[in-house]
Structure formats: structure tokens, C-alpha cells
């Protein structure tokens, strides 16, 4: 049996009204321990009000080598931006 503790990614909400943000990672035997360790490692000075932990192996990440196919199609779609549309100057509040 592989007895090395698996890797977990830690996300912390620093205060209500803000989203959880990736803080880093840590090793723990299970999800409860991951949460406790995250508390000790990443929030020793009130950095958070809520923590998520996710097993790193459960994250599917995009590959930066494919950024072209993934993100470039958005670049030529200027009609998704308000400045693409001509409106006379007299029109207010638009």
C-alpha cells in the first residue's frame, strides 16, 4: 500500500461577499484532516471565514499549450462588446 498522504488543493474565502480563492496545497490522509491542516497552515491570522479542500487528482486543468484553440476564438468576436455598436451622441444613459 502507498502510505504517502495525498495532495489537496486549498481554497479560502477571506470574507463573506468574496469568492473562495486558491491558497496553495497540502498533504493529508483524508478530507477531514485536509480541512484541519488547511486551517493551521493557511489561516493562522484570520485569513478566512470558509475553506474548501479538493483532492488535487480530482482537478482537470486546461493545458497552456492549447491556449490558442481554447481562448483565441474569443478575440475576433468584437460584437460581444458594447463599443461595437454605433449609437448617436444624443442618446443618453446607454
Amino acid at each position: 500500500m502507498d502510505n504517502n498522504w495525498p495532495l489537496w488543493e486549498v481554497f479560502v474565502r477571506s470574507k463573506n461577499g468574496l469568492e473562495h480563492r486558491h491558497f496553495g496545497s497540502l498533504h493529508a490522509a483524508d478530507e477531514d484532516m485536509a480541512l484541519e491542516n488547511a486551517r493551521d497552515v493557511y489561516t493562522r491570522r484570520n485569513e478566512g471565514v470558509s475553506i474548501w479542500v479538493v483532492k488535487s487528482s480530482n482537478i482537470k486543468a486546461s493545458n497552456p499549450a492549447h491556449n490558442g484553440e481554447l481562448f483565441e476564438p474569443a478575440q475576433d468576436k468584437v460584437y460581444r462588446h458594447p463599443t461595437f455598436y454605433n449609437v448617436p451622441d444624443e442618446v443618453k444613459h446607454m
Partner: protein
Amino acid sequence: MSNEQIKSLEEIFEARIARDEKIEPKDWMPEKYRKTHIRQISQHAHSEIVGMLPEGNWISRAPSLRRKAALLAKVQDEAGHGLYLYSACETLGISRIELYDQLHSGKAKYSSIFNYPTLTWADMGAVGWLVDGAAIINQVPLCNTSFGPYARAMVRVCKEESFHQRQGFEIMLKLCNGSKQQKDMAQDALNRWWWPSLMMLGPTDAESVHTEQSMKWKLKRKSNDDLRQQFIDQTVPQADLLGLTIPDPDLKFNEQTGSYDFGTIDWDEFWQVVKGHGPCNKQRISARVAAWDNGSWVRDAAMAHAAKKEALKIKIAI
């Protein structure tokens, strides 16, 4: 990939860094960049972890509850720093267990300063004031380094370091305002920690092998000698304030440069310690290895418990 393709990728890569873009773990990077970062980040992580030992030595003997709480919190922070840095290092494709093996087998280095003993309570003052002080000078420029996970870890580390230095200085101040014996103790600690702290900022520029490449990659933003000068210039007035004497007869203010000139550093001593012959090298590594080995049954038990809980969850779901 052909050599030409690699070469053009390298050019694009260097240009990105020159434009101050950050490199993230899944981005293409030259093998040398990856290796150099694994080496530097892991050395840094090991230093935080081994660095707990000289101070851990005094937790149970701190002179008051206030001091004990502060020292305990500081040592806990150092553990945290080690963990931030190990996890940044793991994003480069090396496992935690490999990193530990490198430390435990002596293959990896850590800061030579932690191979000196902490003989009296005043050493807790000197370590916080000088060693954390020198560490801050080393670390602040790294908050802007090119590798994203390292830079982010350093931002967190730097936020926490200033309490470390202040609590050390406060210990020194208290001793210096105390009895003659207490002040002597503070002076003795400064005498022993001064030179090793200067060495901590690394070999002189002439001797430093990695500097040029490291500057390009923003792993280094100022040379070792510049950092050392900065440390001396900021620390001497603090020693004056304490009423302590820096153990260097050649130290004097230079009106022309606006900096302090200082005596010759005993680099033979530095290399002896780096090569494993410092006063505590063996003690530090054996303490670390013992902690890891003695914890083995706990790690196994935790994994067994996790497996049982998982099995139970699946059973309930069915």
C-alpha cells in the same frame, strides 16, 4: 522536439520573463529553469523546517508565558513557511517524499546558519533579530520572482516574518535594559551570531556561481554583496540602540559611500559548515530523520483510518 524548436521556445520564454510575465507550473519551461527552481525552492523549504530546531530547543524553557506563546507561534510559522514552499516546489513535478529523501540523505542543502547551537535564552533574541532580519532581506525581492507559485508563497512568508524579527529585537532590548549579567548574555549572543548572519547572505559575488542566470530569471534581484551591505547598514544602528558592540574592529561608517565598511568574513568557516562540518549539522539532520521515522506509524494509521472511512461511505451509499 527539434533543437531549433526548443531554441525558439526558449527565446519566447526568456522574453516573457523579461516582460515581467509570470511563469505558471503547466507552462512550457526550459529543463534548466525547472531544475534550478526545484533546487532553490526546496533548499528554502528545508531551511524553514530545519530552522525550527534551534528555536524549538527553547520553547519549554522560555522565561515567561508571553515569550513562550510568541516563540511557539514563530516556530509554527516557520513550519507553515516550509509547507508553503514544499507545495510550491511540488508544482514543478517533484513529490514531497522525494524532497524529504533529499533532505534526510544529505543530498539537499539548507541554510548553514541553522547548524549553529542556541546556547542561551539571548540566542532567541539574536536569532529573531539577526537571522530573521537577514532572511527578510533575502526574501522581499523574491515576492516578484518569475515563477508564480514561488512568488505567491514568498508574499505570504514575508507578511509573517516581521513579527519574527520584532519579537527577537524585543528580547534583546529587555536583556539590554536588565542586569549586567543579562546584558552580557545579549552581547555574547550577538558575538556568536553576527558573522554567521553575514555569511547567511551567501558567498561573495566573485564566488557566486549562479548569480547571472538567477538575475535573468528574477530568482535574484540584488547580488549577495549588495544584500549583505544592506543588512549591515540597517543593523548597526539597531545594535547602537541596544548599546551592544558589533564584534568587528574594522567596522566603521564611510562618509563617502554612506555605508559601513566591515572586516573580512571567514569564508573557510562558511564552507566548512556548508560541507557538513558545522557544530550541529549531524544533530540537526538526525533530529529531523528521527521525527520523520518516529512519525511513520502515525502516517500509516491515518491512511488506514481514511481507507476504512471511505469503505464505510461506499457501503452506506449502496
